[in-house]
């Protein structure tokens, strides 16, 4: 296991507090936890890509970063209007 994969494991561990935010509490707290989780997963995917040497997979975190923008906006709008 190289240093990139070790860093990825430590970053993936940050998903535990994010999951706690997403699973408990008010809808506002859950949305903040979801947005933080999307940033953490993006970073972890880059670390895994470089750590495993499968460089073409770098497109996946790039796509996730762009898609999470739309997801965050939709959830915020939904929270504002309907929840």
């Amino acid at each position, binding site marked *: 296991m190289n*240093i*990139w994969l070790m*860093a990825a494991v*430590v*970053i993936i561990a*940050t998903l535990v*507090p*994010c999951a*706690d*935010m997403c699973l408990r509490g*008010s809808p*506002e*707290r859950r*949305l*903040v*936890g979801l*947005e*933080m989780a999307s*940033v*953490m997963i*993006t*970073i972890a995917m*880059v*670390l895994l*890509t*470089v750590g495993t040497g499968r*460089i073409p997979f*770098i*497109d996946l*975190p*790039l796509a996730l*970063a*762009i898609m*999470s*923008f739309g997801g*965050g*906006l939709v959830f*915020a*709008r939904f*929270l*504002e209007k309907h*929840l």
Partner: protein
Amino acid sequence: MTAFLDLLLGSLIVSCWLGVLGMWRMREPMQALHYLALPAWGATTFLTAAVFLQTGNSQAAWKTLLMCLVLLAINSVVAHATARAFRARELGHWQPRDGDPIEFVRPGRVK
């Protein structure tokens, strides 16, 4: 070079954990929202520098830089939209009105 790479990845981990723990500890969602900036700005910058250091002038490094710029840009927009949604959900409106405990400039009063 390896020591500098270790330093960059260590800084990345510290900024991510500080952001997550800060978010986790805050009681108000509006306060927790502020901690999104730490990983979105700090960690992605360290990550981009580390990937450039590891792979050199490669396609992966430039795509990581693009991802960093995307995260920097969208984090501001999403955080604003989320804060606006929180305020509108709580008050029924998001624009400041008379009686709100904040200072604001009325439209048309700026010269």
